[in-house]
């Protein structure tokens, strides 16, 4: 287990908790299947849930993690080059996102936050669609129903209620799919997340609350949000919870499978706290050196989720030159696709501003659109209407 966590004081870990069906208030051990050194450790309760993961699948989890780190780095570079207005990096959270998202079925439905780009990638969102909104070319990057992923949520925690409502719908329909809400540690303070847990428990809705405790909500450490482990909060709502090493892709998979299985079988919601770390800034506009100790970053770099799974592959003799070359080629290709897709993205038209406000035409808005198009037409050079300084 991770002994040197930072950020959250308070309750010490006690005993080997019954973490799969945890309902008590006692603090939980962190579930871990791969140590930071890449050693596979056995866990009687969790091992069965990942026993089917073949060597090849382990390699592909590694590939996914490398690819999303590369997407993240490329998007950050694009932002620095002025191609994106902003980007929220997920650096360090690859295992949490891949381990959980790769566990989902196609008909499960995901409600992500702005940072869950790795999850969206796993669901089949195209690279340029990940950055469409950050470039300022659209409000949302993709059609939720083509990939069963709601669009990125910026209002902290709002999506947890949406996931719960979706799960209530699944329940009414008698289906066995699951809704998954992704949110951060800070989000657990919001009313929406707490109300979502009330609803989920009341109706035993098939929803998984997947909290990535990356230790920081912009400048605020997790201890400001909670004096107990976040996973322990769930029991107060009557929701079982799991506290898992979020930098351990296998442990995250196992935990998510347990939660999904419970939901599919009518067992109701589960809260997963994936304990991880945001290694980068909150967004490209943030300066973490103002609030964060460099040592802390170093401690967590030693628990890097990618080097961990890489070491495991190495120990198992699976880290071949072929695998490395294939992974590098895939990352290069995706990064190239992202860059080209970003740079070649068509610019929106001025009158697009009036589209989709309502699903049926509306005379108020039609009038405003008509007036604005007359205004634009009154310029010889339509670009003149663009600047605040004016063109007269």
């Amino acid at each position, binding site marked *: 287990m991770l002994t040197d966590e930072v950020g959250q004081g308070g309750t010490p870990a006690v005993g080997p908790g019954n973490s799969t069906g945890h309902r008590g208030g006692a603090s939980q051990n962190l579930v871990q299947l791969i140590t930071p050194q890449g050693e596979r450790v056995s866990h009687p309760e969790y091992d069965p849930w990942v026993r089917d993961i073949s060597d090849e699948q382990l390699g592909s989890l590694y590939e996914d993690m490398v690819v999303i780190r590369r997407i993240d780095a490329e998007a950050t570079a694009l932002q620095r080059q002025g191609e994106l*207005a*902003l980007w929220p990096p997920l650096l360090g959270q690859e295992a949490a996102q891949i381990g959980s998202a790769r566990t989902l079925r196609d008909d499960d439905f995901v409600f992500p936050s*702005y940072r869950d780009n790795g999850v969206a990638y796993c669901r089949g969102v195209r690279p340029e669609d990940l950055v469409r*909104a*950050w*470039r*300022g*070319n*659209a*409000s949302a990057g993709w059609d939720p129903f083509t990939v069963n992923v709601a669009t990125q949520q*910026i*209002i*902290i925690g709002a999506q947890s209620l949406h996931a719960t409502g979706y799960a209530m719908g699944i329940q009414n329909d008698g289906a066995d799919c699951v809704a998954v809400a992704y949110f951060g540690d*800070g*989000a657990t*303070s*919001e*009313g*929406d997340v707490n109300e979502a847990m009330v609803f989920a428990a009341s109706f035993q809705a098939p929803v998984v609350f997947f909290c990535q405790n990356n230790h920081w*909500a*912009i*400048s*605020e450490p997790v201890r*400001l*949000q909670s004096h107990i482990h976040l996973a322990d909060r769930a029991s107060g709502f009557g929701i079982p919870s799991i506290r898992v090493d979020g930098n351990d892709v296998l442990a995250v998979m196992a935990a998510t499978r347990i939660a999904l299985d419970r939901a599919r079988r009518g067992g109701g919601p589960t809260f997963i706290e994936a304990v991880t770390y945001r290694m980068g800034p909150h967004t490209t*506009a*943030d300066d973490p050196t*103002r*609030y964060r100790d460099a040592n802390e970053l170093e401690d967590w770099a030693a628990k890097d989720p990618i080097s961990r799974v890489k070491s495991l592959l190495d120990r198992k003799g699976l880290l071949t030159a072929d695998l490395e070359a294939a992974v590098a080629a895939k990352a290069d290709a995706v990064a190239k696709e992202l860059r080209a897709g970003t740079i070649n993205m068509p*610019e*929106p038209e*001025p009158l*697009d*501003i*009036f589209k989709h*406000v309502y699903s049926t035409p509306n005379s*108020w*808005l039609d009038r*405003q659109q008509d*007036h*604005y198009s*007359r*205004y634009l*037409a*009154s*310029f010889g050079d339509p670009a*003149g*209407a*663009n*600047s*605040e*300084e*004016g*063109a*007269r």
Partner: protein
Amino acid sequence: MTQMTFARAINSGLRKSLENDPKVVLMGEDIGTLGGVFRVTDGLQKDFGKHRVVDTPLAEAGIMGTAVGLAYRGYRPVVEIQFDGFIYPAFDQIVSQVAKMHYRTQGAVKMPITVRVPFGGGIGSPEHHSESPEAYFTHTSGLRVVSPSSPQDAYTMIQQAISCDDPVLYFEPKRRYHDKGDVDETLEPGSALPLGNARVITDGRDVTLVAYGPLVKTARDAAIAAADEGVSIEVIDLRSLAPVDYAALEASVRKTGRLVITHEAGQSGGLGAELAASITERCFYYLETAPVRVTGFDVPYPYSKLEMHHLPSLDRILDGVDRALGRPNSLSGLEG
């Protein structure tokens, strides 16, 4: 006089209030170590301590609701809402509790709470970061709503808001945070222009142009441009959005006979509608023509590549001025 940015001027005003009154407490997300995402509270926690400048959990209803309790206890909370679009989780506490407490308790409980809201667009932000929600609050009795437009006003008005016994929504035009101006830090808030008063920015005789917050600068630039074309615009910085200083507007409209109102918020149900109706009621016989509104469209705040179409620009304001003057404009030939 000191040259400082708009953001720095608010910081300096907050510092003065913290120094002068031990009951003043700042609360909000990331306002401590980080100094706020816009650095408006930079250094204040270091100098006044964690009990005066409080980094709160990430919960807007929580921030606003606990501010109510602190006010009950005799404190004067100054709440920062990180961005305009995040005020809605706190909306219930503001409109149902903060606004009504004085009335409900027949004056026994005062709510001297200041809510600082960086608002408006023009900085290329994602969704929920560029909204102009002021009309929701001007519509709610019991709240005062103000918006400074210059570093000097930012400095004095924040102190006036904090010392006001009524709850004040203090809307900060975030795209002007880095604009610099002279600030007289010796100016006592008590001897400055009162919080509720509008100010004439440029004298004019042909048209009255009313703006507030981020658009005051654009309106002033429009007046300068119009002067080149021989049109004399009187620009009024509203400053107080609720209650409105109608005496100042009436005096101007009686002189010019024409009214143009501009704001970033959408048109329908916006503050411009209220100003147009009220001035029409009060100055009907002085008006040469119907009031003109130049506003954002009735659309959700658009993604950043299109925001400059949504925001009233200098040219769009001048086009509105032309309409008020009956000069050729983009709608010439259209009826109604």
